[in-house]
Structure formats: structure tokens, C-alpha cells
């Protein structure tokens, strides 16, 4: 049975439900339930991968890497949809122009969006990989434009154009890699596994060229500096649940694509170029993002820049070829960042502003949010005992062991600046004696999902142990290399 079909049933059903406007009243709850049901399904489908098996059928391959990112995506989607069951109806009351159709369209689009993101780590075929990512891009564009304000339109346009151009480069790269295998007979293949298998007789020049273009394309999607410019706009203007999905899942998908390609490069003995490109890219991204975090005026933009920073860290992890840390850090980052975006959604809704200067006294007015935001801030900045600390620490260790001393120094500096900056900005919003929220909401209820995610990341920090690391390296190992 095709794993992809199995896990795509429920999202598809949600997407279909979204086509009928009269479901608007109960669709949010339905979506939440559907994705809570999706969790065990995905768990069941991915189970074999944890025992080392990898199911391949019809161009799809459920290997370790695929399983890991499928699970992450599912977690993110579940959290986002559960929270959107609270956020969207509340937000809808404020927006008179919101019709049932538009409201339900959200669910259709996010259903397909999530499907596309499922496809990314599972497809074997580079071409379909590209198509999946492009599809995710196209589906998320209207989601970003959910509010249809001037700003969100602008953000959508920038997102659409920049990402499409990037993706076009990625396509070009893919084609070149396809062309690079003229040498061996029996026509070309686009299957990653086969490419890895006979990577030896790929034309190195064309392969390098292709990888460069793919890096440019998928890097744009992941938000590697200086290709990140669309990212803050999109993340800050999209509804918070969408920002959560973009940051928690889509970012990972782009990086998974880069990981797949890096495997081919490694197999083809181009590891030198891989290092030469990815490590500096990651380090520079981290430090640039941290510098940009110093001056922030908008809660969600701040979170967006921190996503850029983590994209840099993940790129570094890929660059030093350590798949397990790539998975681990992606997991931790997704948990925490999603939690923060969902919290931000609640805050923005209740206080009616994203501006840090106008927020304030959250801890006093709505203690649950205040504590959760502060904890999330520390978590995303990589303070122990949260999972991010452990994964960043292991990443630094391996990078140092790999001899990338300069990169490590840069990253440590970047992380330091980031923590100070994020905590300062969070402090502006959380501490002090601010004004009461404009709309009062059931804070406890709204904090539930983020709190669960934060606790998960806390556990992830505590639970990293040799067995777990073995499982991780097995998952990554099946992804090839590392």
C-alpha cells in the first residue's frame, strides 16, 4: 500500500469539505479533529521506517528522512489546525467582508498545501520533488493573502514572484542534473536513489552547475541570506496559523530537497563543493539574521527573522553532512517556532497590534501568555533545558569536529546576539505595566496547544540519549550518508 496515499486521505477529505461553503460553521472543529486523527495514522505509516525498513512504491519512498519530516509536518499541521479552530472563527467576527466561501477555501488550500509538503520528503523523483515544492508555494500564496489587506497583498506578491523565480532556478538545476547523466546508457533517471547509486558517472561539471542552481532555488524557499527577503513580509502578514505552517513545515521541505541533492553530491564525491557552499551560507545566514534581529518593531517579523537564523543553522547541519542533527534541530525548531507563532496569533488578536512598542505588560494582563512567550523566546534562542539547546550544541560540536572553527565562532556570536535581541524584544512585550487587551479571550484555552508544544520541546531536550541518537542516525542514515 502506498504510504503517501494512506496519509493523504484525511487531508484530502478536509480539502474536499472546504469546497462546500455551508460547512463553514463546523469545518474548523472538523479540521482540528481530522488532523488529530491524522497523527496516529502517520505514526502507523512511519513506524516501519523506525525499525529500519523503507517502503518504496510508485516513485515514493518512505525512508527515515521522509518519515521524520512527515511526522514533523503532521505535528505542525495538527497544532496549526487545532489553533485555527480557535483563532479563525474569532478573527472572522472582526472581518465583515469574510464570506463562507473564502473561509472554507482556507481549508481546501491548506489541505492541498499540507499534501504537497507531505510529498516533498517522500517523492524520489527530483522532478516531482520540484513540482511538489512549487505546488506548496502556489497553494500557500492565497493563504498568505487570507486577510486581503494591502500589506498582505504586497507580501503575497513578493512571496509569489521571488519564490517562483527561485523555484525556476531550482527547475533549471534539476534539468541540468538530469542532463548530467548523458554518460551512461539507458536514458536518464531522476530517482534520487538511482542517481546516488551511479553517481560516479555523472558529469561533475554539470552536476556542480545543477546543484548550484538548485541551491539557489531551494535556498530562496528556505530563506538563506540574502535570498530571505520575502520571508519576513510573508510570515508577518499571513494569518498566524499559516505563518506557523510556513515556518514549521515549508521551510523544512525546502531544506529536505537540499539534503536529497547533497546526498547525490556526496555520492559523486563533490563533498568539497558542498562544504564550500553550505557551511559559509549557513554561518553567514545565522550571523546576518542575528544582526537583523537587533532592531525589530514587530512581534511576528521578529519570529520570521529568527526562522531565517534557524534555516542557517539547518543549512550548516546539511553542510557538515550530519543528517541526525538536521532532523533533530528541524524538529525542535518546528515545535518551538510553531508554538510562538500560535501564541503571537492569540496576542495579536487580543491586543489588536503586532507592534512591540504598543504591546506590553502581557505578563501582568494575561500571565499564561506572558510566561509561555518568555519560555518560547528562551527556547527559540537555544537556552537549556529546551531541545534547541541540545541540538544547537551538538551541531556546534560536530561543526567544530569537522574543523569549521570560523563558522562555529560566527554561529556562537550569532546565537548570543540572537538570544539577547529576542529576549529584549520579548521583554518589551511581556514585562512592564501595559494596557489591558482590546478583546478578551479564553487565554488558558488558547495557550493550551503552544504549551503542549513547548513541553514537547522540553522533553526533547531531556530525552536526547544514545538510543535516541541511534534512532536518529538510523533515520538519517537511510537518507543516505552521514
Amino acid at each position: 500500500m502506498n504510504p503517501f496515499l494512506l496519509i493523504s486521505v484525511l487531508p484530502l477529505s478536509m480539502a474536499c469539505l472546504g469546497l462546500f461553503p455551508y460547512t463553514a460553521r463546523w469545518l474548523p472543529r472538523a479540521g482540528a479533529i481530522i488532523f488529530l486523527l491524522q497523527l496516529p495514522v502517520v505514526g502507523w505509516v512511519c513506524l516501519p521506517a523506525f525499525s529500519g525498513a523503507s517502503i518504496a512504491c510508485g516513485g515514493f519512498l518512505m525512508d527515515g528522512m521522509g518519515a521524520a519530516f512527515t511526522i514533523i509536518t503532521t505535528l505542525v499541521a495538527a497544532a496549526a489546525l487545532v489553533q485555527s479552530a480557535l483563532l479563525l472563527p474569532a478573527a472572522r467576527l472582526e472581518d465583515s467582508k469574510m464570506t463562507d466561501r473564502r473561509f472554507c477555501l482556507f481549508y481546501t488550500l491548506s489541505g492541498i498545501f499540507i499534501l504537497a509538503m507531505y510529498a516533498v520528503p517522500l517523492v524520489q523523483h527530483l522532478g516531482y520533488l520540484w513540482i511538489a515544492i512549487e505546488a506548496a508555494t502556489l497553494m500557500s500564496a492565497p493563504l498568505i493573502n487570507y486577510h486581503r489587506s494591502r500589506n498582505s497583498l504586497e507580501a503575497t506578491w513578493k512571496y509569489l514572484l521571488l519564490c517562483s523565480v527561485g523555484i525556476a532556478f531550482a527547475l533549471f538545476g534539476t534539468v541540468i542534473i538530469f542532463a548530467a547523466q548523458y554518460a551512461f546508457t539507458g536514458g536518464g533517471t531522476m530517482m534520487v536513489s538511482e542517481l546516488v547509486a551511479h553517481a560516479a558517472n555523472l558529469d561533475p561539471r554539470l552536476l556542480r552547475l545543477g546543484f548550484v542552481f538548485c541551491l539557489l532555488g531551494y535556498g530562496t524557499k528556505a530563506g538563506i541570506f540574502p535570498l530571505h527577503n520575502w520571508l519576513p513580509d510573508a510570515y508577518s502578514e499571513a494569518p498566524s496559523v499559516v505563518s506557523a505552517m510556513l515556518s514549521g513545515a515549508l521551510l523544512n521541505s525546502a531544506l529536505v530537497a537540499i539534503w536529497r541533492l547533497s546526498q547525490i553530491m556526496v555520492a559523486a564525491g563533490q563533498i568539497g563543493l558542498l562544504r564550500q557552499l553550505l557551511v559559509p551560507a549557513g554561518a553567514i545566514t545565522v550571523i546576518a539574521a542575528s544582526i537583523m534581529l537587533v532592531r525589530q518593531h514587530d512581534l511576528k517579523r521578529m519570529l520570521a527573522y529568527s526562522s531565517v537564523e534557524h534555516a542557517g543553522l539547518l543549512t550548516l547541519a546539511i553542510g557538515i553532512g550530519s543528517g541526525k542533527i538536521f532532523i533533530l534541530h528541524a524538529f525542535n525548531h518546528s515545535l518551538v517556532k510553531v508554538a510562538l507563532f500560535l501564541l503571537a496569533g492569540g496576542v495579536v488578536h487580543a491586543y489588536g497590534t503586532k507592534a512591540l512598542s504598543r504591546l506590553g505588560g502581557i505578563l501582568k494582563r494575561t500571565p499564561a501568555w506572558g510566561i509561555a512567550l518568555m519560555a518560547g523566546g528562551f527556547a527559540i534562542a537555544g537556552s537549556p533545558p529546551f531541545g534547541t539547546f541540545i541540538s544547537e550544541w551538538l551541531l556546534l560540536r560536530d561543526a567544530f569536529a569537522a574543523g569549521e572553527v570560523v563558522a562555529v565562532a560566527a554561529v556562537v556570536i550569532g546565537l548570543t546576539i540572537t538570544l539577547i535581541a529576542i529576549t529584549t524584544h520579548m521583554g518589551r512585550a511581556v514585562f512592564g505595566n501595559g494596557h489591558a487587551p482590546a478583546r478578551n479571550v479564553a487565554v488558558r484555552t488558547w495557550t493550551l496547544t503552544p504549551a503542549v508544544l513547548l513541553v514537547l520541546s522540553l522533553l526533547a531536550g531531556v530525552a536526547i540519549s544514545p538510543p535516541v541518537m541511534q534512532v536518529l542516525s538510523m533515520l538519517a542514515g537511510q537518507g543516505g550518508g552521514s
Partner: protein
Amino acid sequence: MSLFPWFLGDAGFTFAVDPLSCWFLAIIGVAGLPALIFAPGYLQHLRHRVSLSLVWVALILLMISMAGVVMAANAILFLVAWEVMALSSFALVTADHERRDSRRAAIIYLGATRAGTAFLMIGFLWAHHLTGSWVFSEWGISGTGALAPALLIFAGLATKAGCWPFHLWLPIAHPAAPAPVSALMSGVMIKTAIYVMIRLFVLDNHFVVPLLGPILLVLGAISAFWGVLFALLQHDLKRLLAYHSVENIGIILMGLGVSLLGRQHHLPLLEQLGLAAALFHTLNHAIFKSLLFLGAGAVDACTHLRDIEKLGGLVHRMPWTTGAFVTGSAAICALPPLNGFASEWLLYQGFFKLAMDGPSVGLRFGALLLMGWLALIGALAIACFVKAVGVVFLGNPRSRRAERATEAGRGMVVAQVLPAVMCIALGVAAPAVLGQLGRITSRLGDPSLLYHAWTIPLTLIALLLACTVGGLAMWVAALSRSLPARRFITWECGFGDLGPRTQYTATGFAQPISRIFGAVYSYTVDINVKGRNRRYFPDKVTAETAHEAYLETKVYTPLLQSIKRMAGIFLMRLQAGSIHQYLIYMALMLGLLFWVGVS
């Protein structure tokens, strides 16, 4: 001892408890207990602004994490405990977050401690790279390769310890926290950095870096002087005490420096003396500094005043607090027979031995010079605490609040008397303490050296003192039975009664010394006289003093400002909002990648 061997990836959740750890655990307990006794009573007067539950949780977390820091056996677990310690203390500093300055203090504190952690991280990674292990006891790095990681780690620790020039956060953050927390932070938390220094640099040969001894000595000397000098200028009691923490950290570092020099030149006695002085002074400082902070807290709680210029005359209203505070002051001024003297005497002996056996003339002379330097610091400390005690507790009250003060609650009094008693006991029983220290220093060599180095019969002197004072007291009592003393006003030169304004202010008291060292912080006094016919009958005469801490104004502030400005410019230029610009970035990136990848 390994609790959960599966923790933290590859390092393990392992503890190592040896005499050194026990010593610092004892310090945590000894200084933590009074703070915990003090807290309930004290927090009552903050309960409107502070969420008590949060404070308690953070307080307990702080205690636990400090214990974790001194027991951690490997670098990663250590870092975790270290960060938890920093975060919980950050939470405590922000406890009173509705006040702007405590928010500011919290941010500064966080920045400083995080910068320190960054140094530590790189240093530890480096050490791991060199040794392939996270476990401290398996580290053995020497030669030129050891210098860089050692200096990085030292920088990180110095930041936490508040050693010059990394001390700036300390006098800002410590006063902002509630008094019991200040007591813990100043008394114990900064000592954890000392612990790691001893563990890594002094006690075992984890890092063999000859350069470190002189560095510690010099930085310690500067910190001690700097701290006490700035303490002399303060008006906020807690701030004054915080600066004294910088001073005492300096003294402790000097002890460590002596010890390292002793190792470098193979003088085992010197090695032990320095270490013993440092450890002993660490304990002493933990006790009297927490005592003093608790005293300041009691004054704050009972008068709601922290500006000492508004206080005075509390000796009649808060006798217990006064007694404890005076004891603590005497101890921190290293007056015999209290504990402060015992440890500083050891340090003096260390300097003297260095002056005797030092291999080079420069070293010998330097050691003699340091003896004088220490004396200077001690004298400055005395001046500072005479000022503090005199202005806060003695004389006439300078404000109505000070007049209306009443003694603190029983718990708070007990919490102050306890360390006061310990100050005396540790001084009198110094040989016993040395016995305990011998268990630590024995790792450096024969501990009997240390016992023999302790010659002065402090106990005897204490006894003599007590007897003589008692005898005199009895004699005076006998005399006063025949003609009792009478009470009368303080002599006012016949100009009507003395108001509080006629007393010396703290500023006035410190002025002569401040003027002498004015060059260090451009000390200025400007006096202006108002009114017609100002020469003879001025309406109003005002004198204002001002000083400038160059390190802040000339180094740190400009640095941070420029960083912020550059960051702003960077962001605005890069993220200018024009999609064409972004496309051009993409094209440039394409060119760059093309160049790297293809050529």
C-alpha cells in the same frame, strides 16, 4: 556518580563530588539558609508588585542549579546548570518588572551573562576538540595550545564573577533583585565562577597556562581597587554592597593568582596558601555579603528607602539589624578577630612568602607592593563601611520615613543574626576551617605546610579582647555606681539644636578620598551660591558632585550604541522593501554561486 547515563546526547548526566564541590555546596547552604529564612518576611512588602509564586519557584531553581553547577562532572551538564542558573536569576531580577530600571537591569544582566556563556561555549568546544572528552577530569591541556581555550573560558567565568573589566552588569543587576536574591547572587552565584576557575586552572592540571597566574593577580588587584573605589561613591546601599562584591572577587582572584604563581615556580607552600586564602575568603564573603544584603533589605523593607542620604538614626529603632550590620561591616573590613581578617591574613602571608621566595626581583617587589595595595584596599573598605553604617544607622534620621522605622520581623532578625554569629565563629575557629581546607589543598601537596603557615593565635587574641573589654566594662560600671553618667544634648556650639542637615552626608564623608582619586573617574564638585549679596548672606548654597565611569561611558556604551546603529542601517538597507532590489540580490547570489561552483 551518574544519575541518568542517557542524558544530553553523549555527555551523560554525571556528577562528581569531591572536597572542593563539598566546600562550595557548604557555601551555598550557609549563605542560602539565611536568605531563605529572610525571604518570607521580606517579600511581604513586595507582594503588591511581585508574583510571589514565581519568585519562590525561581529561587528554588536557582539554589538547585547552583548546586548542579558545582557538582557537574562534564562540560555540557555544567553548561545546562549554568544557563538554568542564569535564567532563574534573570527571572528573579525581573521579578519587580513594573519598574523600568529593574527591566533595564535584567536586560543588561542577561546580555552580560549570555556573552560570558558564549565565551565558555567556544572554550569548552575547543577543549573538547583538543581532548575528545566532555568530562572535566579527563581534560589535560598544556603548552601553547592551551592558552586560547583557557583565556576564552576565563573570560566567560570572569564575566559571571564580575571581575574588572567585565563587572559592569554586577552593580546594576544585583541591587535590582529582591534583597534575599541579591544576597544569593552576590554571596554565592558569582562564586560558582570562582569554583570553576579553581577546578579547571588551579586545583588539577586541566589547563596548564603559565600566563594565567599574572593575569589573575593583575585583574584581581584592579578589580579590588576599582570595586571599593566606586563603592565609596554610591548612595544606594545595595549598589554600594554590589560594588564591594567586585572588590572581594578581586581579592579572591589575587589569592588564586598567588597560588598559580606558586605552582609555576614550584613553591608548594605558596600554592597552598593562595588557594586556601581564596577558598576561605570565598566562604567568608558569602557569609558577610549575604548578611549585609539582608541588612540592606531589612532597612529597605522597614523604611522603603534605599538612598542612604535619607536614612539615619536607625540604631535606636532597629537595634538587631544595626548590630548584625556592624558585625558584617567589621568582617568585610577584615578586622580581627572576625573571619574576614583570617582570610585576608592568609593572603598577606601569601604575598609575604612570594616576596621572600619569589625567583625574580620584580616578583618580590611586586609582592611587597601588593601587600601595600591590599592595605590600601582594606583602608578604603573601612572608610566606605564607616560611611555606610554611620549614615544609615547612626546620627539623626534624615527623613520622616527613617524616623518612623521599626525593627524588622522576627524571621528577618534571625536571618541576620545567624550569619553575624558565623562571622565571629569562623574568625575565632579559623584553624578548624583550615583543617577542612587542608582536605582540598592536600591535592596540591602536604597539607601540614598549610597548618604551620597559620601562626597567629586569633582565638587567644579574641579571648584577651573579650576579657579586657569585659573587665573595663565592669570597672566603668563600678565607677558609674558612685557617679552615674548624665544624658544631655549633643554640643551644638550654642546655635540652637542640631537638625539632621548639620550632619555629614555620605557624599561629604567620601569627598576627601573621592577627590584624591578623582582622576580615575573625573570627580567634580560644583558649588553654586544663590541670592543677592551672595558673598556674605547667600540665600542658598548647593554643592553637587559628579563622576564619570570611563569604562561605561567611553567603552561599553559607545560600542553597544554603534552596534545597534550599524544593525539598524544594515537592516534598512537590505530590507528596503523594493522587490527589484531583492531580485538583484538573487542575481548577484546566482553570480556568486556560479563563480564558486563552476570555476
